[in-house]
């Protein structure tokens, strides 16, 4: 059983070579038939032209100032001052060049390299940032603060998207991330308050997330209820349950039930004073460090171990996996449960790190952003991590933009992650393909 499941090429997604003439195998025949489409070059071109006109030609003439070092750093770097107009022109011309390169590749029917959209995105974000800051009333922001804040805001999103990756790689759609985060946040607050120990709260959050996930697993695997229905309803259930208990129990005795201590920020002596990187990597709470660990562990687990190969097999082709002796539904059940535990830890961020009490709907839709991050990251833990960072960045930028006063309405900044996701799922920013058996219940024949 163990030998048959190991593929000769670990780390590569399982691609069944000979697929049966099965109805759902040919879901997207049109896309797989022609490998190189016009979508990417055209999208890049449109974005580059927009960047050229808005960030370049119509861009602000001021100077954008980006502070790099903060006071406590052990060596100081000078702030970067960028002439906004020139930078806008230069960066957008490079973007135009990249779009042109993609077009040339398309005419040769060559698939554009994977770095191309990534580099393009980075350039776009940078020129956008320069444009926003350059046009602001006070054209100066701390880059270190911006990035550190983005990472902090991204923590629950990263955990949530890891939960999504774990579930969907095994073939169970997890819309209930929001509920798992909320359940984790609530339980963390209540347990940490009762025991006066935030670490126990963290543990309890993981258990709570796992329990929420188990409901999803039982209903979608044992009772074969549509997974999306269960997920949507679970979100409502957890929202109602935590809201109800918050109003009845927590409000009545705030001291006893809703005053969890905060998890301390652990600073690693010398390393934390490295400019920019120090605060991100070496000045975090336990939850923050756990985030990095979780991303790496899940990535190694899914792509470098026997367990991961089996999980992916179950998510891609459960029948084949079953034939090889992998217990499909058991694998799915435990993966969903594990995913819930991971999301639960992420939920504890709200009540143990960000602020030290629970309020209704404290997760504020981050579970759905996590879902988007997972898709944008193409069901890969590392990809999901960076997508979550992007969303955290947009979230953080939104509040900074309001402070420094730019012409861009903050609501549009808030809208950005969702717009990006729409573009991503519509296949305009690279094609994202879910695991083949994602959302399809497996009933043993």
């Amino acid at each position: 059983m163990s030998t048959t499941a190991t593929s000769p090429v670990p780390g590569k997604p399982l691609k069944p070579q000979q697929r049966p003439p099965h109805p759902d195998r040919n879901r997207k025949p049109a896309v797989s038939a022609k490998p190189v489409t016009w979508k990417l070059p055209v999208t890049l071109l449109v974005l580059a032209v927009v960047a050229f006109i808005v960030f370049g030609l119509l861009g602000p003439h001021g100077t954008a100032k980006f502070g790099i070092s903060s006071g406590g750093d052990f060596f100081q770097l000078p702030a970067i001052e960028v002439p906004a107009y020139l930078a806008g022109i230069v960066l957008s011309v490079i973007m135009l060049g990249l779009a042109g390169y993609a077009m040339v590749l398309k005419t040769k029917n060559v698939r554009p390299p994977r770095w191309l959209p990534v580099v393009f995105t980075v350039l776009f974000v940078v020129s956008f940032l320069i444009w926003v800051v350059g046009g602001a009333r006070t054209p100066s922001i701390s880059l270190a603060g911006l990035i550190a804040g983005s990472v902090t805001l991204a923590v629950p999103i990263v955990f949530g998207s890891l939960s999504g990756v774990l579930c969907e790689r095994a073939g169970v759609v997890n819309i209930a991330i929001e509920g798992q985060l909320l359940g984790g946040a609530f339980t963390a607050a209540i347990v940490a308050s009762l025991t006066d120990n935030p670490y126990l709260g963290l543990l309890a959050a993981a258990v709570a997330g796992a329990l929420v996930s188990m409901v999803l697993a039982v209903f979608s695997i044992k009772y074969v209820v549509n997974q999306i229905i269960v997920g949507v309803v679970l979100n409502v259930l957890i929202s109602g349950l935590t809201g109800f208990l918050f109003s009845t129990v927590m409000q009545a005795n705030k001291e006893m039930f809703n005053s969890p201590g905060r998890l301390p920020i652990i600073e690693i002596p010398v390393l934390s004073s490295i400019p920019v990187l120090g605060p991100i990597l070496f000045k975090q709470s336990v939850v923050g460090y756990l985030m990095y660990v979780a991303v790496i562990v899940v990535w190694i687990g899914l792509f470098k171990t026997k367990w991961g190969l089996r999980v992916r097999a179950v998510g891609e082709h459960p029948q084949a996996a079953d034939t090889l002796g992998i217990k499909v539904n058991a694998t799915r059940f435990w993966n969903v449960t594990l995913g819930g535990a991971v999301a639960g830890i992420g939920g504890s961020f709200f009540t143990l790190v960000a602020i030290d009490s629970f309020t209704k709907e404290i997760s504020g839709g981050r579970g759905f952003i996590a879902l988007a991050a997972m898709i944008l990251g193409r069901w890969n833990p590392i990809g999901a991590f960076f997508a979550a960072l992007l969303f955290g960045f947009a979230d953080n930028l939104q509040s900074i933009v309001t402070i420094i006063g730019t012409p861009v309405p903050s609501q549009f900044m808030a809208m950005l992650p969702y717009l990006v996701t729409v573009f991503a799922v519509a296949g305009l920013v690279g094609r994202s393909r879910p695991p083949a058996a994602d959302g399809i219940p497996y009933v043993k024949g």
Partner: protein
Amino acid sequence: MSENNEPRRTAVPDPDRIPAAQSPESLATDAEIETPDVEDTAFVTSLDTAGGAMQPSAVPVSAQSGTLPGAEEPDSVLRKIFTGNGVVTILAVLLALILGGLLIASTDKVVAATSSYFFARPGDFLSAVWSAATGSYVALFQGSVFNPRGSGVGGQFAPLMETLTIATPLITAGLGVALAFRAGLFNIGAQGQIIMAGILASWVGFALHLPVGLHLLLVLLAGVIGGAVWGGLVGVLKARTGAHEVILTIMFNYIALYFVRYLLDSEAFQRPGETTPISPILDPTAVYPQIFGSQYRLHIGFLLAIAATVFVSWLLNRSTIGFEFRAVGANPKAALTAGINVPRATILVMAIAGALAGLAGVAQVAGTEKVLTDGVAATYGFDAITVALLGRSTPWGTFAAGVLFGAFRAGAVQMQIQTGTPIDIVLVVQSLIVLFIAAPPLVRAIFGLNPRKKKAAPAGKSPKAATTGGAA
């Protein structure tokens, strides 16, 4: 290691063997390929749920009817008569109410006090549990249907009018969700569709000043178009790019929410002299007239909701286009083979679903609220999903479910005032109802309705199916 007994049987529909044995047929339609291995429930299930050509999001037909996919054997017909869907629905509601009552009781102060001497006088405890739960539910009933303390008949039935007022957007938005379900699409976007409809309808309502009749008509039209465009856009993206409509609609909800927040912050929409994000009040010519005079909030939006139910009922059951929708929902692949334009049906069904949700948005801004705020959709868009699920995606079922949830919503306000039970309990009860309805075997098991012989049925079935499969 129980699977190790199976390989011989699972090997029968071996991917390599089917094309070899059936090569001429395998080139034909999928339905024909599927015939030789009927015993393979996985095949049947994946056909049922994945549907085929479109994305896997297609809601399985069996999930709509609430029965187990893969369990659609002939013998289940008998079982359906005994423990039919109606019974399961009622039991699911009952079970959810019981669990909700226990939750209320568990946080009740009297219950907590009596539980400390439970072993001395268990009667006190039990009566406290009973009174806590029933007290809340009585208040709920009085707040939603009939209040004996009201002044006169009009006052006594005022709660019922409030129920119907709140039910109006639930019904129409629920119809939108239900219609999309029937076409195999999971429309979570009612929230955003309501908001976009609200934006357009309210703008026509307060910015244009038109004669009576025409103004309201334009408000209605603007709202319906707003919802239809927002829904139809999802349909277009889904049909053209194959993007998952669940993700799209969730994202569109947020985009609509931030868009309305932006507008309410702008000069065009913010009420002059206000700092809070609120629009001017709609012109009197632009609002729905009240049905029973000004003492109730019930407006003709409710009559439109009834009309919409009739329309959807006709559309689904009597019209060609509705047949296409259902065909696409049942099996997009087969629908495509039968010559149905699946992308067109996808776009159309999402647009109509959006229009129906748009009707809910109009009911909010032109009926109940008379202004636009960023809370225009409240939670109606999400409640609409549970309404459609409870109504099993049938038009009149959705109507009834909308009225029931409207009653919960209306009564919960009264319940919170009278007994201090938070409104959130309604969310718990609602979601439990839907969960239980989605899993009939669970409900039957809890109430002991699962006959013992049912356990034997699948076991006895497989060899039989295997032999017929072998014969074929």
